[in-house]
């Protein structure tokens, strides 16, 4: 009994010890697990704390990124707007180019532009984006009811916004109920001379945050607008001046055309008159000359010496008069286009040789040397041979008149572009500068002692000029009083 009790006690004790040991082990394990769980929880909490830091940092980074994106988009929009408004010089078009697309990129869906009208003494709406007709009318009334306030604000030349405007600038009520915006920027438009105004941009987006950067962008935009308006004004001014000038030029051209037409008419009348008179003169002149010649023959009876001398004079003067009348008739024929030039390639040398033959007696008599220097490669010309012979006869004849004995007349030629230039020079008394242009006019004679002695009609050079011009050429003179003259003319190549 005792033994069994002892055994039972011992067994129980052992079981208790074993269970206690197990319990202890379990408890230790639980404690260990709890420690581990606590550690994990601490780690998780630590990680959660780190997560909080990450989220806060991320939020700040996102905010900065958003602002940066907004600024970059704003700059792109501003660049687009600036380009668009600077590409026109028409005031109304400038305002039309303030498109919603760009303004929305700047963060505003409402836009107003008012300009001060100096004549009407009120503000005129130039652009309204994002408003209904009814809202525009309300805004227009509000602005003009407060025009002095607006003018003062423009005068201060400050850009104001929901960020920077003083509390009494605009009430929230007015901003929302009249301008339909929660946030705004107001910026004056200040062209140098043109009417001033302002730009208002607004947004209803409650999450909008107006920054100094936004103010700066809108200020740049209004500066650009001011410049564009100034450019448009200058362009309009220049355009108007040009239009006025063009009008005047057109008017003057019309007057000149009318005057020219009148001159042409008069010239034609003069030509016709000269032609008629010359014809009328030639018939009686022929009779006078004929009768004088008959009388001089003595067939109608002997003529006293005094009478013969008079008849000789009549005959000589009649010749001069016939010569003059023929020249006048030639000029008027050329002027009226009645003379047809028979153009054909000719050699200058042949023509000059012929003229030389014709005048050689006179040249010899006057002891004047004629020097001809013709370049063979510039000697073929397209001319009416008979007419150009007259040109040479006239020019050499004139040179002979004014070149003293022992003097020289020289003829040369050369290529002048597409034309052939011929120069006829003499060592005569020369032509004063003031007379050089007039010598080609009809009946003009240089006032000098030789002209007073030597007779002339004053038609030779006029005739020469018309013949050359009919050949599509030009004639001019270079001369200096006392140093001879050079008459140059151009002819088409043959």
């Amino acid at each position: 009994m005792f033994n069994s009790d002892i055994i039972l006690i011992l067994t129980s004790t052992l079981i208790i010890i074993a269970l206690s040991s197990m319990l202890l082990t379990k408890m230790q394990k639980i404690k260990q697990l709890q420690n581990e769980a606590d550690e994990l929880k601490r780690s998780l909490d630590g990680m959660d704390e780190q997560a909080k830091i990450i989220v806060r940092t991320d939020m700040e980074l996102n905010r900065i990124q958003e602002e940066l994106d907004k600024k970059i988009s704003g700059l792109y929009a501003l660049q687009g707007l600036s380009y668009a408004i600077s590409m026109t010089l028409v005031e109304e078009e400038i305002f039309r180019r303030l498109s919603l697309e760009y303004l929305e990129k700047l963060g505003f869906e409402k836009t107003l532009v008012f300009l001060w009208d100096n004549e009407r003494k009120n503000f005129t709406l130039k652009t309204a984006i994002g408003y209904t007709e009814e809202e525009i009318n309300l805004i227009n009334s509000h602005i003009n009811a407060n025009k002095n306030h607006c003018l003062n604000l423009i005068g201060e030349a400050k850009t104001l916004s929901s960020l920077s405007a003083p509390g009494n600038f605009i009430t929230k009520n007015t901003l929302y109920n009249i301008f339909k915006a929660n946030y705004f920027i107001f910026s004056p438009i200040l062209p140098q001379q043109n009417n001033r105004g302002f730009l208002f941009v607004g947004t209803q987006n409650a999450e909008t945050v107006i920054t100094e950067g936004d103010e700066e962008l809108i200020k740049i935009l209004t500066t650009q607008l001011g410049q564009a308006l100034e450019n448009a004004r200058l362009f309009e001014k220049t355009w108007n001046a040009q239009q006025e000038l063009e009008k005047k030029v057109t008017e003057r051209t019309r007057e000149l055309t009318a005057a020219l037409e009148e001159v042409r008419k008069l010239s034609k009348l003069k030509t016709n008159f000269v032609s008629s008179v010359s014809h009328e003169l030639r018939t009686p002149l022929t009779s006078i000359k004929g009768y004088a010649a008959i009388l001089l023959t003595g067939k109608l009876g002997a003529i006293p010496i005094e009478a013969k001398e008079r008849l000789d004079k009549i005959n000589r003067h009649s010749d001069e008069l016939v010569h003059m009348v023929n020249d006048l008739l030639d000029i008027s024929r050329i002027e009226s286009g009645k003379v047809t030039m028979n153009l054909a390639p000719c050699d200058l040398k042949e023509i000059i040789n012929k003229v030389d033959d014709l005048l050689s007696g006179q040249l010899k008599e006057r002891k004047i040397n004629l020097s001809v220097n013709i370049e063979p490669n510039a000697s073929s010309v397209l001319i009416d041979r008979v007419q150009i012979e007259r040109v040479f006869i006239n020019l050499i004849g004139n040179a002979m008149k004014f070149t003293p004995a022992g003097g020289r007349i020289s003829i040369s030629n050369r290529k002048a572009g597409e034309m052939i230039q011929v120069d006829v020079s003499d060592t005569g008394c020369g032509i004063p500068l003031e007379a050089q242009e007039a010598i080609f006019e009809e009946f003009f004679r240089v006032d000098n002692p030789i002209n007073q002695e030597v007779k002339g009609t004053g038609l030779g050079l006029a005739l020469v000029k018309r013949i050359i011009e009919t050949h599509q050429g030009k004639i001019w003179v270079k001369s200096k009083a006392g140093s001879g003259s050079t008459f140059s003319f151009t002819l088409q190549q043959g």
Partner: protein
Amino acid sequence: MQVGIGFSAESDHIKAAKEAVDNAMPGINKGKVDLAFLFSTIKFNHPLVLKTIAESLKNIPLLGLNTPAVMFNLGIYSNGLLVVLFSLPEGIYFNTACVKEVSTKTALASGEKLGEELLYGCQGVRRNLSIIFSDGCIADKQNIIFGLQEKIGRSFPMVGASTCGLNARTEKACLYFGSLALNDAVCGILFGDKLNFGLGIKHGWQPLGKPRKITRSSGNTINEIDDKAGVDLYQEYLAKNVSGLKKNLGRISTFYPLGIDITRKKEYLLRSLSSIEDDGSLVFNGDTPQGSTVRLMISSKESCLESTRQAAKLAKKSLGNQKPKLLLVFNSLARAILLGRQENMEIEIIKDVFGKDTPIAGVYTLTEQAPLSSAIYLGKSYFHNNSIAILAIAG
């Protein structure tokens, strides 16, 4: 199937509508137009646009929605309208339907009604895809899906999007159905029989911080997380008071949605924050079931773009060897905000995966609707936030 896409940014509504339709017409190769989608920015939300399109297309069925920007092969445009025309071969059936004034009934009932109307005309036809557009302002949009799937079944996927204005206070985005522009409505199309398509949906957000439990919620509203006011979670992570959080709501909603681990499939269903209530409750753009485990989510531009590539690859893979005739893209506006100036990269990635000439027509959305796992259809569609859903239609 022939598909034509036409875009116009003309400021005149009539000219824009005509130009978009004219530009889309060559794509259908003189075929008969059977169906049209219209995606337009809010500026083109004008009766004249719908009237002109209806006149041009002889009143064919039309569905669509407003979007802050339209996306197509040439880029992303914040002003413009996009018309997608379909000429369907024999063997592809469809029916369109619309339920107006959703707020006068429950969203569930509206979904059921839409389902009934979509089924009408598709009886006896094997259904294989539905596309649903809903007004983003409807509070419990997810119930529309439940109601709809209750009626049309869960054996095929449902894809869709809800409208989103850039600024809910000033821009009232609407849906298009026929010649109507509607708010407070849901419309959809049910395709049957031989329509081949592939679908990919991804978001690119990663969990951050420790898992938490929604201890009290109702519908879209989380009242408590870990027995504390819902707003505490955001206060803790962002170190801002309630007023600071409200001020930054747009940014928080975009960058730090909550991820709901509802299936333990390594895919978190995102919920972006819509508003913060005075009692500290959080309202999300989608349902937030009580008892769910949630984590704060974070993303980066790279991760976002990578998810676009994954979504495109999934859509391509699920389409098999077929070449898509159209890629319909429902893309969360939050992604465009996150990507900022790199938003166009998503189109480039899609073109890179499918080929640059594959026609793309996409919209920016508030929520996207698609099955959770895009590779294998699991019978249930969800409302997603911050995600990109790519539906590749091969015909």
